[in-house]
């Protein structure tokens, strides 16, 4: 059964056949793109006109997100920016702490039982001049039920008095850097870092494993993907215990599950040997829509949390250098063992010293454990300088830069964390491309909203939330940005032979758009309307999700 779809235009991302009007699909595979005449030769077919006024692109590839966003949407959205939930409902951004409290009150009124917790997410005090939410403010929503609001960074939570009581922390005399105290000697309700968030988080409705995504969450996350035109998404990262893998195999195997998920095994809590053993076992269990068997390592923390590892001259505000989340010797062993076993490793580095370490280690281990096409990828890699990009190129590495971060926290980096010069060159897409490094750009959803076309807009325009262009030199063209969110991202996942372009033999994964991203104007790239997706030949309309 061959279906030939007619479209207004098809952007194939295949330079040898850049544009087409028709694409032929059989059993979820692309037979070819071209004119109806070109494709009719494949034999008996039906012509499907439903996309006749749409623009087709290769299904968009999000190279770095977290499926946990699917579960977060069951909590109350408290973010500063407008954001769309899996049902397609747009939640207005909240422009003041009062507005946050008001939304929590509305959500509170809907809760049925008296002691049910009230979790919220995506609070970001930097947009409220860093004014902090207090325990008393959340008490004004409810003193009787536990309330906790997770910050956009994912590293801080504000809770009310009831939550502190349930967690045994409503007392004086606490001495922990992650628990600021008020003038009365009691915690203010702000909890910084997973160590102190976890014991309270479980009382306010957050899972102990913050990266965890449950069955409903995984389905909801897929609906977000359809709205964003995404057909393949990398989930960085998950613990992938047996229960989680069984669940993910089941859900992604459902006949109408609309996205291919690429979950990377998180390194923490395992020895390098155990890690590669587990990743190898997982690789054997790969399916069409659950691409298991890759590894994610975290080398350092975050720049805005001052836990990233920076080279000289360090943090602009004089903060001490950040933290390692893996010892260099362990990281080396992971690389060596993974190279020996042909496993693919992605490493989170935010600070430039963390990036430097990875480059040093790769230089050391590659000659001994040669793998011609390892494609080890640096994730975030926000602060890399030109010399480091040159080394990445020599070492055969890929990079996935955090273009969205530049918009949401660029001003913060400029003013506080790394200062104007380095903030201006952060997430250096132009430099990466100039050096010929395979590059993707990402949202890190839920940290920022899933939406590769928005991410592309960020990389093209490099605007910050305050409206400044920060780093004009590092801007990239629309064409380069579209490549980054399709073939570029697919390459970093070693899936570029399978997806990322519309050409013969590849999976029939399309983003179905109402507008042509090449013509809408680079400043409006984020406004391109997404009708839905085609994944493996199956059609998913966003409005029906």
């Amino acid at each position, binding site marked *: 059964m061959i279906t030939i779809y007619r479209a207004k235009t098809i952007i194939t991302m295949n330079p040898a056949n850049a544009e087409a009007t028709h694409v032929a699909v059989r059993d979820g595979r692309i037979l070819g793109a071209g004119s109806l005449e070109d494709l009719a030769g494949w034999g008996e077919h039906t012509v499907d006109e439903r996309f006749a006024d749409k623009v087709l692109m290769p299904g968009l590839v999000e190279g770095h997100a977290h499926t946990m966003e699917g579960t977060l949407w069951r909590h109350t959205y408290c973010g500063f920016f407008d954001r769309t939930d899996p049902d397609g409902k747009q939640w207005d951004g909240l422009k003041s702490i009062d507005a946050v409290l008001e939304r929590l009150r509305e959500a509170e009124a809907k809760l049925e039982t008296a002691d049910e917790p009230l979790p919220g997410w995506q609070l970001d005090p930097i947009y409220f001049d860093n004014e902090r939410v207090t325990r008393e403010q959340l008490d004004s929503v409810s003193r009787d039920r536990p309330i906790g609001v997770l910050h956009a960074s994912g590293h801080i939570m504000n809770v009310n008095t009831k939550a502190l009581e349930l967690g*045994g*922390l409503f007392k004086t005399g*606490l*001495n*922990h*850097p*992650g*628990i600021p105290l008020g003038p009365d000697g009691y915690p203010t309700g702000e909890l910084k870092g*997973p*160590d*102190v968030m*976890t*014991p309270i988080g479980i009382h306010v409705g957050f899972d*102990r*494993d913050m990266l965890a995504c449950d069955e409903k969450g995984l389905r909801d996350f897929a609906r977000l993907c359809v709205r964003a035109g995404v057909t393949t998404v990398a989930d960085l990262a998950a*613990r992938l215990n047996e229960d989680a893998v069984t669940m993910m195999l089941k859900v992604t195997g459902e006949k109408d599950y609309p996205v291919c998920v690429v979950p990377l095994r*998180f390194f*923490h*809590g*395992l*020895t390098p*040997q*155990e890690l590669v053993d587990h990743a190898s076992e997982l690789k054997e269990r790969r399916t069409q829509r659950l691409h298991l068997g890759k590894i994610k390592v975290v080398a350092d923390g975050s720049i805005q949390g001052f836990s990233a*590892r920076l080279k000289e001259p360090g943090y602009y505000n004089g903060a*001490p*250098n950040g*933290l*390692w*989340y*893996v*010892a*260099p*010797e*362990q990281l080396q062993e992971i690389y060596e063992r993974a190279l020996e076993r042909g496993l693919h490793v992605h490493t989170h580095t935010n600070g430039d*010293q963390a990036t430097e*370490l990875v480059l040093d280690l790769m230089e050391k281990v590659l000659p001994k454990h040669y793998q011609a096409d390892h494609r080890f990828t640096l994730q975030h890699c926000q602060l890399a300088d030109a010399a480091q990009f040159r080394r990445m190129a020599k070492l055969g590495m890929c990079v996935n830069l955090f273009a969205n971060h530049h918009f949401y926290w660029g001003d913060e980096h400029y003013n506080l964390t790394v200062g104007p010069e380095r903030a201006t060159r952060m997430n250096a897409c132009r430099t990466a491309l100039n050096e010929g490094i395979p590059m993707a750009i990402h949202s890190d959803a839920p940290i920022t909203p899933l939406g590769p076309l928005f991410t592309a807009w960020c990389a093209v325009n490099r605007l910050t939330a305050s409206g400044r262009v920060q780093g004009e030199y590092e801007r990239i063209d629309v064409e380069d940005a579209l490549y980054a969110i399709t073939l570029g991202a697919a390459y970093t996942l070693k899936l570029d032979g399978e997806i990322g372009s519309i050409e013969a033999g590849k999976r029939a994964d399309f983003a179905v758009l109402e507008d042509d991203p090449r013509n809408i104007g680079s400043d409006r790239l984020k406004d391109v309307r997404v009708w839905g997706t085609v994944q493996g030949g199956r059609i998913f309309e966003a409005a029906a999700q």
Partner: protein
Amino acid sequence: MTRLPVTVIGGYLGSGKTTLVNHLLRNADGKRLAVLVNEFGELPIDEDLIIGKEGDVIALAGGCVCCSYGDDLTGALIELAASDDPPDLVLLEASGVAMPGAIAGVLGLFDQFELTGIVVLADAQTICKRLDDAYVGDTIRRQVRDADLVLLTKVDLASEAQTSNAAKRLAEFARDAQLLSVANGEVDLSIITSKMAVNWEHGAPLVPKHDANIFVSRSMILPDAVTSEALKNWLEAHAGTLVRAKGFARSKSGGMKSVQLSGDQVTVADVDDQPKAALALIGLRDGSAETWLGADAVELLASIEAA
């Protein structure tokens, strides 16, 4: 409520945590220990100690257990606190790049636990090189700064020069920690778990009885006649033979001062509270410090007073 004592054991990779923990399990003196480790693979408990393994828990001889907390330390602590059959003591092994002080801070959130102290291990052979490492040097310094007791390990494998250089480097920033050298990971459990923070006001700092110990130390209450000025002069005169010293004494002008020796520097500072006048000294056993640290207290005090 009886609080469960917890000792945090930190230190970089290869600093000897595994050897130490195995030694402690072997010499637990009938105490039931629970060892919490980041991951089992990092802690190959000696085979002969293992009775059985189930999930995250390894059952060990003598009623001891070893649990891996993976990436969920607080979760493991919550479970341990809720246990019907709590152990006598918890040894919490931090991962190689973790900040033991931060882990101790987490313990402080739970009423069920009582921190006995933070032990940080440093390999005498490699610590100087590691401290100069551009990537991990500052991490190790921060770990050592968190310590109440620093164990300089593998002195049986290190040269004398390595050991003494390592001790000097560590003493530069180990704050008030005790520094104790260790061969073959052999340290008494009582030393590891005693309240280790030096009580500069009252008691003597812990002086472990160990053959490989290269340090001698002594503490004493100071009579009013010893001024902070005299103490400073005396410490400066003896700086070459001392690793660390800290004392409280009244200055000629009447204010209470802290007087500290670190490296070759003596620093004098005002103190807000009113500690008792006291002095603690730590010197290298192979230096001339041994002579005066063993001297008669009256003579020693007279020599300080006259400085």
